[in-house]
């Protein structure tokens, strides 16, 4: 008697196919532009996106900056306060953009709209869903960081050449926070946990050398702060905006790449379990 050996694994298709990721991305795209109202709202939001960097630079540069008469030493450079704080605000904007994009929208779409359950029944693997969502968040938030960098150039805080390099680096920063954000969102039990995320973001915001050099802190605290992902992002963007392209950049770049890989792997595992795959 001939039996079919069902235990032989069927040769698996490559886990992430560009075509299927593309299809999911296209779905997100059409979903976002599904109605006229959604489109109008999106337009308004983009318009307001420009106001954010302008407001921050005005407040920190003109306002707080004018109270500070000394320059701020970074490595061998002496920076005006606005030069010091602008790249940090850029990094913060990338972080909060990526976190709110990934955590809030991923959560809503996954838990409330059940979008991913629906997609993943259409022969799309969890890895493909995660990658598509990750790319989608990067695209959206990168548009914001481009606006921010442009405002910095117009305000004369940074030269065009350094600004372009810094812009490329913002993509890495966004990618890192988006990957980790997606992973975190699979851990959230409900809306009450969003409070924790907000507090954590505030802590990072206030203590990552955003407003003043961390040399102000006691030695032990400086070590802890250096572990902060926002600190690393700020260090990267600050160095690039002042044209400091040295070997020292290996540390933040490596750190952010690690976030990307770990975040994505974790997200795929969690989403796979959520979807029962």
């Amino acid at each position, binding site marked *: 008697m001939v039996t079919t050996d069902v235990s032989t694994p069927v040769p698996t298709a490559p886990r992430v196919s560009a075509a299927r990721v593309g299809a999911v991305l296209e779905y997100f795209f059409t979903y976002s532009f599904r109605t006229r*109202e*959604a489109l109008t*709202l*999106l337009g*308004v*939001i983009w318009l*307001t*996106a420009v*106001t*954010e960097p302008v*407001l*921050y630079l*005005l*407040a920190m540069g*003109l*306002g*707080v900056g*004018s*109270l*500070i008469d*000394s320059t*701020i030493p970074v490595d061998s450079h002496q920076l005006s*306060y606005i030069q010091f704080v602008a790249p940090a605000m850029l990094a913060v904007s990338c972080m909060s953009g990526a976190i709110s994009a990934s955590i809030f929208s991923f959560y809503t779409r996954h838990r409330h709209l059940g979008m991913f359950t629906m997609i993943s029944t259409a022969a799309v693997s969890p890895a493909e869903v995660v990658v598509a969502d990750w790319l989608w968040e990067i695209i959206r938030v990168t548009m914001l960081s481009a606006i921010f960098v442009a405002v910095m150039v117009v305000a004369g805080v940074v030269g065009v050449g350094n600004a372009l390099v810094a812009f490329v680096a913002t993509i890495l920063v966004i990618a890192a926070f988006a990957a980790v954000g997606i992973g975190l969102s699979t851990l959230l039990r409900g809306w*009450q946990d969003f*409070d*924790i995320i*907000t*507090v954590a973001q*505030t*802590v990072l915001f*206030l*203590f990552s050398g955003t*407003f*003043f050099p961390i040399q*102000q802190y006691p030695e032990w605290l400086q070590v802890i702060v250096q572990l902060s992902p926002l600190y690393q992002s700020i260090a990267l963007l600050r160095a690039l905006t002042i044209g400091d392209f040295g070997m020292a950049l290996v540390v933040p770049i490596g750190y952010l790449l690690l976030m990307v890989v770990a975040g994505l792997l974790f997200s795929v595992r969690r989403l796979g379990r959520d979807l029962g795959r």
Partner: protein
Amino acid sequence: MANPTITVLERHMLLYQRLWRASAFSLFILPVLFLTSIGLGVGGYIHQVDGHDYLQWITPGLIASTAFQTGANESTYGVLSEFEWVGGIKAMRSTPVRIQDMIRGWLIYVLIATELAVAAFLIVIWLAGALTPGLAISAPFVCGAVSLAIATPTTAFSAAINDQDWFLVLARFVILPATLFSGVLFPISQLPAFIQPLSYLSPLTHAVELMRDFAFGTATPMTVALHFAYLLAWIVAGWFLANITYRRRLTD
């Protein structure tokens, strides 16, 4: 007979109870973080503002700013979700509770949440040994007023929209500029002359000046009356707007 406003408030307090542990943590931790980071950190580079240490100078403003944020934040998702997802308002609408009772009960809740945040902030300052009687007595009144001044129009706004993305617009166009340019972190006089009048539109600016005047003993009856009158104008206008938007949403 139980007052309908109070019964609405009772429900909001009951719902708040299950969250208070998480929120109590952030109520105490956020003032500490802001004071140490901005006050001490940035303050390290700033010698004096108007004859005061930077930390001393920003503390009254930060309390007012906290109240302003609480009033605004509570009145966004908290209101929209009642209409869109929870349906609590629809349930109330099926009872003798009137629309003005719903709004009043809700605003009293926001006021309580604000006063809790203000109290936590004052306790932190007291533990740091920097609490003055002027600050302790004036803060609950000034902060309550500024919280309601922003909470009433925000509540009206939240009852008028049906997409949460509008909050992003509100945050960027109203809350963020108000927070940055109301003299909390730096004196308004540092701003270009044409922006300064705009700053005085913000209710927070008036609350910050009130708090500073009380903290440093520079308050005069005239300025106090004017600042409070301005805050009151916002509260009254917002109250009427909220009544209009609630009515529009609930009576058809």
